[in-house]
């Protein structure tokens, strides 16, 4: 899949929570092909402590309006600077990067999918859900957060499948972690997961115990995003692999979960 360096224009910026913004980017020309689970390396201008680009997963691609959506968790100087962007500003992006969720697996027919996300890790699951729905799959989202305010874009998720929610404080959905949710009593053909490592590990354990195929999307610290610098490696059954190029999506059977 061809990669590009593009100066995208900020069409809108929406505040999703006190820590999250949604950047809706557009371009004069049609945006390139992008797969769910792929990511973008964005250049952060105007933050003296931010040297490298920031890898941000693709939240959604709205083809009708030629928009690329990036959900940004403002956790450091660089991402906070991204949160200050205004409509009309330009964001320099290298994209699309990484393998994506559906790159390695056969195009599914009618299967039931469970998409498990936590925190900002829910971001790539929206675009994935849309794609799976288009392919005729049955989609269940299982989304977790500490509290009600951590659950983002719920109305959008509902367009593409059933939405199940857990919160640690019980302010919404079932109380507890995603791996405690009652929907896990049902049977699924495949699980995709993205979120904090402890959550993904727990999901991977559940998948293994129940013999369900499962892929997880990792977010190791990166520099180049292209498989050139070998900084973002993850230990796998095939040795150290680059999360940016060989991933970010890995079959859980390849992961040794040592980081």
């Amino acid at each position, binding site marked *: 899949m*061809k*990669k*590009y*360096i593009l100066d995208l224009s900020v069409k809108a910026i929406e505040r999703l929570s006190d820590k999250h913004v949604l950047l809706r980017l557009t371009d004069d020309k049609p945006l390139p092909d992008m797969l769910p689970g792929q990511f973008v390396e964005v*250049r952060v201008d105007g933050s*003296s*402590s*931010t*040297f*490298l*680009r920031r890898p941000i997963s693709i939240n959604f691609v709205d083809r009708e309006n030629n928009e690329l959506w990036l959900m940004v968790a403002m956790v450091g100087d660089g991402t906070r600077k991204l949160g200050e962007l205004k409509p009309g500003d330009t964001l320099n992006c*290298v994209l699309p990067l990484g393998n994506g969720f559906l790159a390695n697996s056969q195009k599914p027919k009618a299967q039931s999918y469970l998409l498990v996300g936590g925190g900002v890790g829910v971001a790539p699951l929206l675009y994935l859900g849309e794609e799976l729905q288009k392919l005729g799959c049955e989609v269940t989202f299982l989304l977790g957060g500490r509290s009600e305010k951590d659950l983002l874009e719920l109305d959008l998720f509902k367009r593409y499948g059933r939405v199940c929610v857990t919160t640690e404080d019980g302010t919404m959905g079932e109380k507890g972690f995603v791996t405690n949710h009652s929907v896990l009593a049902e049977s699924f053909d495949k699980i995709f997961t993205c979120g904090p490592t402890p959550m993904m590990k727990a999901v991977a354990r559940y998948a293994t115990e129940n013999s369900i195929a499962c892929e997880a999307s990792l977010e*190791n*610290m*990166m*520099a*180049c*995003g*292209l*498989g*050139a*610098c*070998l*900084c*973002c*490696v*993850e*230990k796998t059954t095939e*040795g*150290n692999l680059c999360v940016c*190029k060989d991933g970010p999506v890995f079959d859980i059977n390849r992961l040794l979960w*040592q*980081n």
Partner: protein
Amino acid sequence: MAKLNVNIGALSLKNPVMTASGTFGYGVEFEDFIDLSGLGGIIVKGTTLKPREGNDYPRMAETASGMLNCVGLQNKGVDYFCEHIYPQIKDIDTNMIVNVSGSSPEDYAECAARIDALDKIPAIELNISCPNVKDGGMAFGVTCAGASSVVKAVRKAYHKTLIVKLSPNVTDITEIARAVEAEGADSVSLINTLMGMAIDVEKRKKVLSIGTGGLSGPCVKPVALRMVNQVAKAVQIPVVGLGGISTAKDALEFLMAGATAIEIGTANFLDPAVTIKVRDGINQWLDAHGCQDIHEIIGCV
């Protein structure tokens, strides 16, 4: 348009812009962004006789105007390179140069000898300056005796252009440069990364898995420039300059300091098309200043 071609020993470069090892993969990772044949050379990832897994994650820490890395020479070994990677890169229309590392002079020589047999690899860059491996690497590059021993062994086994990459983590880099020149190196490249450290104050722990890493990026440029100038005055062989180059102006500074060619490293992470922009910028500067040939500015300060 000014003449941009330069020579490094027997190696002819169409322009002085090359890529630094470990920052540009095998070149193919960047072919969506630039025409690789527009570069003077591509120095591919460090290669060793035996495969190396490299160091544990985390291998990278961002710093002000730069980054630290401790990748530790992860590569699949020279046999894998010759069999699987070389066929994919041999027809790229530029000088494909292999960076070679090892843990003993014999290792280096054996690895170099295997690459000597590859028709389309006209040169190697000998890495005696990697700060991120325990066995060898920088250990050879910080003493004249160590540097000489490796270059001597490799010179016997390798018959094409031999560039030796020097460590800045020494008291006097000109001594090392002179030592490798005396053993028959065709060129020296400098600088490799500067040894550094980062600490996570919340965890009260060092950020990098092995504690230390090599610093690169714009923050090292003044140090690199000074060393290039010193070495260019100390040796007769051509000097390849690198360290924090991200613009044409940076590259011109290195050329004026005495570098015959330059390498671009960390800047490739920020802008995957930076190399071609630097080449074009050098060209425009020369034209704007009425220079017919890039040699008019090499070492002019």
